[in-house]
């Protein structure tokens, strides 16, 4: 045998999922390397899913200390009164995740996300960042794009009962089964910066309002030099003002970004755990698809709002 076969232990553990995506996909998963930065509830849900799925390695990055807020949607950190005994979020999550699946190598990478250079990302097949500033999203995405190998890039954010996933697979070619034959499909993804630069007027009419609302809030935090999520109801008047400016600049009707939606996004920035579970699940599936090369990947935004219950895919690109 060529050493490529799954072990008996792997076959027994992964039995049910091999029946979904096949041995080949499982083998590819077990050789893949995933990087995750920003370990709030949604990212933690995602980490659980891919550790269970059996990726080769998972590298965690989040130097923040454990706070009550950080614990709110996090099931990885055992409850104790001294808040994790001084360990960082990444360290504490790492300990728990290792336990989930001994066949996955889970480790911690310390340091600020912005300090990692292009070469750092070469070690990975998948990079997921969560709860990051607009600048960080753009910059990490660009670094991944500079590499000769394709690194799949994702952002995921949950604000209260709303969530967003962004996907950049650059040029992605995959096999698609159509009744009898297998056809080769090719998708061309824009970077995050390219996607959000597309004039709003030129986007399809019935696009999710959440897309615009997220851009307004993201931009607000950027211009006010806030940390991601550092926003409250007091900011609402200024957020609405920014919304009006952006709508004017893009010649978009203000009604496309309702006050009530923006209010929900600023009033509580806590992640709503059921929404975190849903986003972490969708993102997990997407990453598994991208690694295994099986199934249609989503292009290139996903939105969920628990108020209407829709989980929508939006293609925000020029190709």
């Amino acid at each position, binding site marked *: *045998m060529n050493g490529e*076969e*799954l072990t008996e232990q792997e*076959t*027994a*553990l*992964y*039995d*049910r*999922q*091999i*029946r*979904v995506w096949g*041995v080949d996909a499982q083998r590819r998963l077990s050789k893949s390397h995933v990087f995750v930065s920003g370990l709030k*509830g949604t990212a933690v*849900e995602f980490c*659980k*899913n891919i550790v*269970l*799925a059996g990726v080769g390695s998972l590298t965690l990055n989040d130097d923040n200390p454990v706070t009550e807020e950080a*614990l*709110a*949607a*996090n*099931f*990885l950190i*055992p*409850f104790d009164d001294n808040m994790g005994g001084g360990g960082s979020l990444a360290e504490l999550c790492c300990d728990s995740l290792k336990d*989930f*699946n001994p066949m996955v190598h889970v480790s911690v990478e310390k340091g600020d996300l912005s300090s990692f250079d292009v070469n750092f990302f070469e070690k990975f097949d998948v990079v997921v960042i969560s709860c990051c500033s607009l600048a960080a999203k753009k910059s990490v995405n660009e670094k991944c794009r500079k590499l000769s190998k394709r690194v799949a890039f994702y952002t995921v954010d949950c604000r*209260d009962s709303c969530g967003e996933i962004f996907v950049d697979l650059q040029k992605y070619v995959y096999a698609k089964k159509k009744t009898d034959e297998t056809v080769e499909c090719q998708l061309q993804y824009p970077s995050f910066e390219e996607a959000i630069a597309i004039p709003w007027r030129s986007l399809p009419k019935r696009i999710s309002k959440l897309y615009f609302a997220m851009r307004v809030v993201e931009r607000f935090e950027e211009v006010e030099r806030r940390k991601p999520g550092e926003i409250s109801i007091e900011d609402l008047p200024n957020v609405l003002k920014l919304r009006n400016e952006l709508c004017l600049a893009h010649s978009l009707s203000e009604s496309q970004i309702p006050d009530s939606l923006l209010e*929900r996004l600023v*009033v*509580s920035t*806590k992640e*709503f*755990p*059921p*929404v*975190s*579970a*849903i986003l*972490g*699940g*969708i993102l*997990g*599936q997407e990453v*598994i698809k991208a690694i295994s090369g099986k*199934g*249609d990947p*989503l292009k290139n935004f*996903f939105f969920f709002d*628990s108020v*209407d*219950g*829709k*989980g*929508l*895919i*939006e293609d925000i690109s020029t190709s």
Partner: protein
Amino acid sequence: MASGQHVSAIKGAKVLMVGAGGIGCELLKTLALSGFQDIHIIDMDTIEVSNLNRQFLFRQSHVGLSKAKVARDAVLRFRPQISITPYHANVKDTNFNVDFFKQFSVVLNGLDNLDARRHVNRLCLAADVPLVESGTTGFLGQVTVHIKGQTECYECQPKPAPKTYPVCTITSTPSKFVHCIVWAKDLLFAKLFGDKNQDNDLNVRSNDAATSSDHSEDIFEHRKDEDIQQYANRIYDHVFGHNIQTALSNEETWKNRNKPRPIYVKDVLFDEPIQQNGNVDKSNDHLSSLSAMAYLDLKNPQDIWNLRENSRVFFAALKLFFSKRQKDIGNLTFDKDDPLAVEFVTAAANIRAASFDIPLHSLFEAKGIAGNIVHAVATTNAIIAGLIVIEAIKVLQNETKNCRMTYCLQHPSRKMLLMPVEPFEPNKSCYVCSETPLLLEVNTHRAKLRDLVEKIVTSKLGMSLPLITHGSSLLYEVGDDLEEDMVANYAANLEKVLSELPYAITGGTIITVEDLQQELVCNINIKHREEFDEENEPDGMVLHGWTPAPAAENSKDATDNNGASTSSTSKSAPDVIEDDDDLSILETGIETIPAGGQKRKLSDVSNPEPPVDEKRAKKIPMHPENDDDVIVMLEDGNDDISKTTQ
């Protein structure tokens, strides 16, 4: 979302979760994180290795322990302040009665079988507690909300019929690998290792039925004077050689089919000396590790063995059964978690497949088919659990008009991967949640009370503790605390023809059937009918009103579903979407999803109609929801050997 009302609704709620499996683990975690304080959880299962890839609250060291209890302990580690009450028990136990259900604000199902789902549905209706129901398979899933009087109940729409195969396809003319599996599992395995008193159609009926039935009784008997190898050879030659040879004599059968090839031991293992018994002794004596593969040094369950390898596995497995597991023989039923049984069935199915020129399959694939193993991944369960909690919170805040049923799709429909639709209204003629009487056509001079109990009350109405009354007279009842003379009385009634019961059931009679635990009462109008079509009405009775025909529904939806439900393709959505193990063969994979975002259930899109060429034959209903996987076999209408249970 984080309004005060929302938080207090969650904090004050007392929630019952049924099932701590794939969905259950995710659900318990998400409930705890969302602030629920008082959660009760029922699950009768213990933890298995194949659970660990998605039931993330469990570890290797928990294998064999109660799911409900381990799940509780795991969640308390990150939320020690909340109360979680585990029950390692069957939800059908009588102590989980209507009063038990009444204490909860909402019931959340993460179950793996239809039977338990129906039971919980009835208890929720009787206790008037809202139910959030769910299921997943592979990347597909759904969440539905059932509130008495406001939305449909779980049983308002008929569930698709379980996958069935004509009996002659299994015994004589297999054309797909699954037919070989059913043969190997339900006929050969059952014949050799199961209850000898069970009816079994293993022997192919030849034109001279008399001779074959004469021999069929003793041929599978292990004779005192023969060793295991001789016995194994004899069985092999009989089922793969002689029976095929006999079948070939039915010229008519093979007119439009490829003829099968009889396979004898000497053709396959010609260069191997026929070994005497005793050589299995060198294998590991540890019962749990008894394995033909280990004995033969076959390693990869993904490999497809050739005919010769399959034959060797067949012999090794058979010999291991007879030498090491003698005491099990006679009372085994196929169990996907019994490695030796899986090996035997894989090998036997493959040898039969080789006879019929059907592609062979790996042990891994064969196990999936034989064990009705559901495809399951963690991500779908996590998504579904999130959706359950969102619906549960709406229910708790009395926002029932905002409740949705949601499909989790593999491919987007109208851009949606998660597609919410408005719940259906209750079906006014649903025998479970409305008081519409049922109508039973039956020959009251021929059918016995036993037929009524077995074919209607138990199997169709799904009652576990039934009580049948005619006017004020009790005809039949099941229970633990009955007087002896009553038990004898009921037993005698069972054997009586309906019209000859002490309180005769005849045309025009209305009987009442109820289940005291489920608090479900059904009135059944009896209509006498003389004749029944053996082929289309094999029960000899027809019950109207328990599976309301969705005809009107179909025509309404046909306009916006892109023809998905009207096409005659045999492709169908998974028939029963399940949480966990042990359910529904998904022959067509997981590709099909509702088209066009129409308002209908996945199950409605499925096409329960068999392909045209199979329509004429009676079916073997497979009841994958039964733990013991017994397949009820009905005779092929074309066959002149009639077997009845009367």
